[in-house]
């Protein structure tokens, strides 16, 4: 049983406000031999400095940066220790200090958190966050072997050698505990592949049906290939700053709140505990939920790290009820099941009722049940299943997508035929905008590692 003491539950508070003003990205591909890694980061960096309508010359903006946090998941993939130094030099940022951040799939979120701490503390006024992953130096099976070394090497790695086999048992347990059909998971895959279809950056776009998903080959039962993210190459970045600089650079900055949580690397070691309650939850809600034999929280059904990060950040940002207060979420759908599990952790639905977020249509851009806009759409970027999971870049890419949505720039960054052409693609004739309405105020993104070992939950709030 994990027992908290008072200090453990202190709500983080910035010493001064932190803002995000710009984002940049490359496209994402399984193989990207055209560019070296640092060249990809440069392309994303230029995209951030040049294409975000900043009110200063790109090189003048660069002249404001005095700290950088870099996200990279695995040295195995890059095959280059101190890759940060190489990238930093290539971007022309020496001798400013930079730190490398590594927290698995949550690397991007952790890099944003690190840079935010630099701004909040006064170490920096303007901080660059950039992340990348080059997963194409090895074949897919070797890539899976590398990733499986992010399971416990003594007690778990040899039992799967692929991460889907660590998520699949959670999917089976979740379906059993909460009576969830495979169709719900398949709908998540259909939705995110479809949203990726409208993104020029997407690696796995597609118009699939639920049947297509369920008929695609099994990786680890019950997870099918179309429910899983892929090996990915690419880079993303965002620019963080203090309040004064934020408004100097843009009329549309977003205020940033972000917190993290961690839990065991091995799912095996999750000991039972009471559910930490979000602001809108009561103990009565969960009175009967864990009545089934062997049922326990978080069990294999939920992620304590995600719940804890949400528990903190909702209080930090004053979120009372996420499904009412948020206008968009970008979740870590490395697998359909991780997406589904997270709906409960971050309180879009109470634990046990996660599937309803999809079935109700709330999670869609257009609710398929009503034909009206979804209440709180999820992963309009195409997510990890549809668009990208170049691991070190992922949590940064998600933040950039949230920013662009709140700034009303979805079309600018997804609908311009020149962007499609830049990445060797043609904009689909039936392209449609997934821009959320101008009344939208707040977006949330989840950056998630391992089987829930590290999770950050970030919130962007319109500041204009």
């Amino acid at each position: 049983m994990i027992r908290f003491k008072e200090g453990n539950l202190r709500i983080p508070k910035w010493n001064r406000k932190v803002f995000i003003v710009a984002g940049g990205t490359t496209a994402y591909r399984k193989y990207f031999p055209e560019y070296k890694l640092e060249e990809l980061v440069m392309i994303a960096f230029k995209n951030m400095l040049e294409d975000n309508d900043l009110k200063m010359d790109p090189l003048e903006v660069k002249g404001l940066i005095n700290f950088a946090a870099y996200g990279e998941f695995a040295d195995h993939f890059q095959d280059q220790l101190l890759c940060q130094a190489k990238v930093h030099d290539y971007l022309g940022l020496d001798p400013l200090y930079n730190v490398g951040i590594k927290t698995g799939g949550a690397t991007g979120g952790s890099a944003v958190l690190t840079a935010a701490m630099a701004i909040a503390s006064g170490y920096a006024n303007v901080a660059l966050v950039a992340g990348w992953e080059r997963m194409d130096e090895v074949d897919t099976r070797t890539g899976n072997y590398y990733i499986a070394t992010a399971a416990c090497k003594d007690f778990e790695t040899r039992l799967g050698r692929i991460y889907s086999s660590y998520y699949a048992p959670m999917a089976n347990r979740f379906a059993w505990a909460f009576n969830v059909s495979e169709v719900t998971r398949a709908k998540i895959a259909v939705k995110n592949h479809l949203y990726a279809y409208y993104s020029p950056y997407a690696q796995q776009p597609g118009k699939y049906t639920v049947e297509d998903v369920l008929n695609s080959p099994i990786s680890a039962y019950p997870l099918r290939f179309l429910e899983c993210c892929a090996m990915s190459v690419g880079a993303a970045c965002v620019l963080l700053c203090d309040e004064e600089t934020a408004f100097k650079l843009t009329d549309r900055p977003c205020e940033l709140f972000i917190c993290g949580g961690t839990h065991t690397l091995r799912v095996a070691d999750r000991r039972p505990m009471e559910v930490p309650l979000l602001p809108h939850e009561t103990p009565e809600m969960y009175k009967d939920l864990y009545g089934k034999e062997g049922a326990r929280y978080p069990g294999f059904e939920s992620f304590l790290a995600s719940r804890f990060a949400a528990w903190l950040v909702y209080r930090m940002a004053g979120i009372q009820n996420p499904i009412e207060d948020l206008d968009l979420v970008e979740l870590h759908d490395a697998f359909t099941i991780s997406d589904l599990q997270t709906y409960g952790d971050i309180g879009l639905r109470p634990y046990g009722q996660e599937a309803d977020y999809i079935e109700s249509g709330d999670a869609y851009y257009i609710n398929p049940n009503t034909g009206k806009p979804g209440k709180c759409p999820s992963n309009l970027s195409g997510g990890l299943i549809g668009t990208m999971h170049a691991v070190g870049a992922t949590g940064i890419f998600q933040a950039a997508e949230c920013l662009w949505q709140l700034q009303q720039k979805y079309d600018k960054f997804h609908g311009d035929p020149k962007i499609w052409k830049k990445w060797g693609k043609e904009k689909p004739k039936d392209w449609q905008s997934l821009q959320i309405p101008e009344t939208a105020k707040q977006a949330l993104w989840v950056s998630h590692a391992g089987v829930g070992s590290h999770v950050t939950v970030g919130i962007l709030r319109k500041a204009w």
Partner: protein
Amino acid sequence: MATKKITKKKGTKPEKKKEEKVKFIGKVTKVRQFKPAMVIEWPRTLTHVHTYGMLSPFFEGLRKGELRATRCPNPNCPENGLWIPPRAHCPDCHTEMVWETLPNPVIGKIYTFTEVVYAGAGIELSTPYWQVDVEIPGVVTIPKSYLLYGKPYIGMKVKAEFRTKNPTNTVLDYYWVPYEE
């Protein structure tokens, strides 16, 4: 990118070395492709030397057909259950744990499972196989292992068995089989 020819300056002949020239003793790198960028192969093989440290008794136990767990001996510690995977130190009070051998037959119950169909490089079990997470009475954790034969379901009773002949000296040396009373 434009390339520019560099012309040599006249009269700067390098001195001839008398010593033996440096030889290339590696393996010639293969080029995979020249367009749109030059891509080479970069092969390697490695051996890591890995210690089981204070958890060595667990792996020695498997060789003898024993499942060993650790327990925190601190009477004031809130956690008094057994740990598999074992830990040398209690995460709650940091006391050094003590070893206990679970009496055979060790009977557990399947908490959840998956069939591993597509596995990454280096997999040592023939695919497809059933990976199982098993609850064991008195153990606070739910360790991951595999089912040697049969088809698992949540709640299924299983018995631990051991690969004492030709052990792999890894966690694969114990597994579960269906158990009927």
